[in-house]
């Protein structure tokens, strides 16, 4: 039976136990190191070796000037792939990449002083590649039988995971701060039951909450909206899930605004909600646009129906006494075109008012045989959209009649439309429009009132709140409209 290196003169085995590393120490040929054969080790070295091998904490002993390395199982885990080559090596060679660091450790330790490092970062190659490693390092001198420092003992606790986790937390916090600064959203946090607003950055849209506030609902919400908001809060708390709601808010200046608000619960490890964290964007402008759009759609629907009623009216008038269906269809189409053009005139003015000149000109132009035969004179007047539309349709009828029977039915007749604002004897401001045809064939009052006449005599006069006179003179038709300039300024007595 071959005696192991570790068998002592008295037949006992050294070191005792120590797991895998203990076995390696016993089997190691220490005679090739400055320590000499294990049987010749001083008692002080043996005692410290036994002590560290029985410790669950990673401990390494650096013995002698060279710092020959003796360590335990816990340290071998720390050393990674560098173990077991490290065992029995000189520390400056074993950890060649941090030789300078260990050189200092040896000098300080062997001079009898201690060294302590917290979260010391060193770059070690433990798995084939250099990597940053963080450690808590405590170095103490170990004295031999002479009472002088003969080695240094180090407790090595790796803190890499904790340090990296802290770094990630710090980065995450920095990113969060950057986000709250970068976003234009309102950022807020509330207690787990939503009773207390801890903090709210209002972005100048809402007032800020810097210190926890219980009365936040009264501050930020209108009373009538609170049940709606509370219902959404209750639902989010019941589901322990996202809170989301569009609601009205009281802005910094007290006026009404709208927000789209979302909050998520933050859980502690046991799964209880510790906080609600949320963001709200100012959607006041969008809500206003939506409200406006609703109004516009409603109004548009009304106008479409009104226009259909108008078309129905034109169809009734055109076809009710028609003897010639083809002719009636042609007239109906022409009236639709006139109505369409009149609508263009109004949309151009955004339905707030239309020009008298525009209403007359655009109804005459399509029928006018030659620019020199249609004269339009007068200082422009703004009409209500309704009046402009009616006038436009009336002028369309006058123009088609002129083409058929009047001044435009030959090669030289002229239609002259003149208007002016004047003051009557009683001080009332009046608008007078005169349509005068000259140079056409001799005219006589028609046998039957056509649509044009009906429109002007029954319609336009009342539309404009005035009088209309149709005179069939030998020289041509003269139609005079005399009405108040502003239908709202003058009340008939």
């Amino acid at each position: 039976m071959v005696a192991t290196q570790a068998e002592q003169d008295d037949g006992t085995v050294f070191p005792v136990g120590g797991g895998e590393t203990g076995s390696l120490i016993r089997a190691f040929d220490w005679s090739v190191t400055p320590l000499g054969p294990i049987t010749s080790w001083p008692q002080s070295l043996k005692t410290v070796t036994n002590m560290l091998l029985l410790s669950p904490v990673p401990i390494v002993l650096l013995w002698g000037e060279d710092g020959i390395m003796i360590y335990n199982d816990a340290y071998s885990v720390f050393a990674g792939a560098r173990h077991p080559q490290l065992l029995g090596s000189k520390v400056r060679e074993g950890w060649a990449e941090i030789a300078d660091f260990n050189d200092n450790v040896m000098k300080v330790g062997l001079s009898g002083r201690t060294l302590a490092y917290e979260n010391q970062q060193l770059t070690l190659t433990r798995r084939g590649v250099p990597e940053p490693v963080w450690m808590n390092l405590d170095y103490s001198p170990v004295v031999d039988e002479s009472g002088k420092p003969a080695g240094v003992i180090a407790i090595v606790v790796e803190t890499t995971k904790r340090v990296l986790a802290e770094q990630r937390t710090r980065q995450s916090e920095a990113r969060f701060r950057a986000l709250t600064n970068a976003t234009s959203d309102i950022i807020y946090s509330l207690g787990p039951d939503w009773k207390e607003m801890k903090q709210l950055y209002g972005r100048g849209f809402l007032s800020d909450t810097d210190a926890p506030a219980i009365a936040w609902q009264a501050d930020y919400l209108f009373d009538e909206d609170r049940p709606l908001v509370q219902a959404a809060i209750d639902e989010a708390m019941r589901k322990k899930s996202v809170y989301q709601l569009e609601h009205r808010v009281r802005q910094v200046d007290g006026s009404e605004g709208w927000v789209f608000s979302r909050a998520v619960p933050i859980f502690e490890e046991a799964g209880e909600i510790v906080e609600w964290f949320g963001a709200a964007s100012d959607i006041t402008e969008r809500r206003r646009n939506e409200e406006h759009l609703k109004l516009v759609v409603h109004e548009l629907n009304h106008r479409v129906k009104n226009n259909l009623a108008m078309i129905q009216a034109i169809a009734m008038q055109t076809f009710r006494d028609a003897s010639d269906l083809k002719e009636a269809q042609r007239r109906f189409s022409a009236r639709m075109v006139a109505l369409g053009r009149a609508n263009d005139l109004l949309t151009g003015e955004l339905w707030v008012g239309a020009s008298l000149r525009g209403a007359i000109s655009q109804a005459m132009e399509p029928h006018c045989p030659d620019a020199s035969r249609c004269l339009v004179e007068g200082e422009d007047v703004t009409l209500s959209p309704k009046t402009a539309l009616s006038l436009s349709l009336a002028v369309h009828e006058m123009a088609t009649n002129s083409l058929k029977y009047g001044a435009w039915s030959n090669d030289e007749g002229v239609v002259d439309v003149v208007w002016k604002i004047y003051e009557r004897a009683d001080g009332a401001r009046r608008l007078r429009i005169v349509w005068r045809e000259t140079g056409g064939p001799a005219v006589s009052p028609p046998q039957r009132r056509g649509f044009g006449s009906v429109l002007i005599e029954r319609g336009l006069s009342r539309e404009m709140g005035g009088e209309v006179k149709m005179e069939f003179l030998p020289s041509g038709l003269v139609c005079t409209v005399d009405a108040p300039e502003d239908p709202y300024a003058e009340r008939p007595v």
Partner: protein
Amino acid sequence: MRVLVVEDDMMIALLIEDMLIDLGHEVIDLAMRLPRAEELAKSADFDLVILDVNLDGRKSFPVADILADRGIPFLFATGYGASGIEPAYAGSPVLTKPFLAGDLQAAIGRLVAQRPYA
């Protein structure tokens, strides 16, 4: 029936007048703007009113107030439909434009039948 027509659109006013005449009613007058409509609602003598809601951008509810005071029945004729009627008149009959002569006659019939003294 003797009818007052309040309608701001010339063409539609002519249509309603013709419909009423064809149905055997008498159109005693037509008002196309609010001041004239209020004037006639206060002073004229008639049995019922066909009342447009939007008179050249002005709502005709002041006219409805006068008619309600006088106890004269009226029906709204409007492109807005019932949604454009003020809450105070939510129960009033509404004819949505465009409508047929038959719709107009039926609405007048219902209006007259509702009158306790008719």
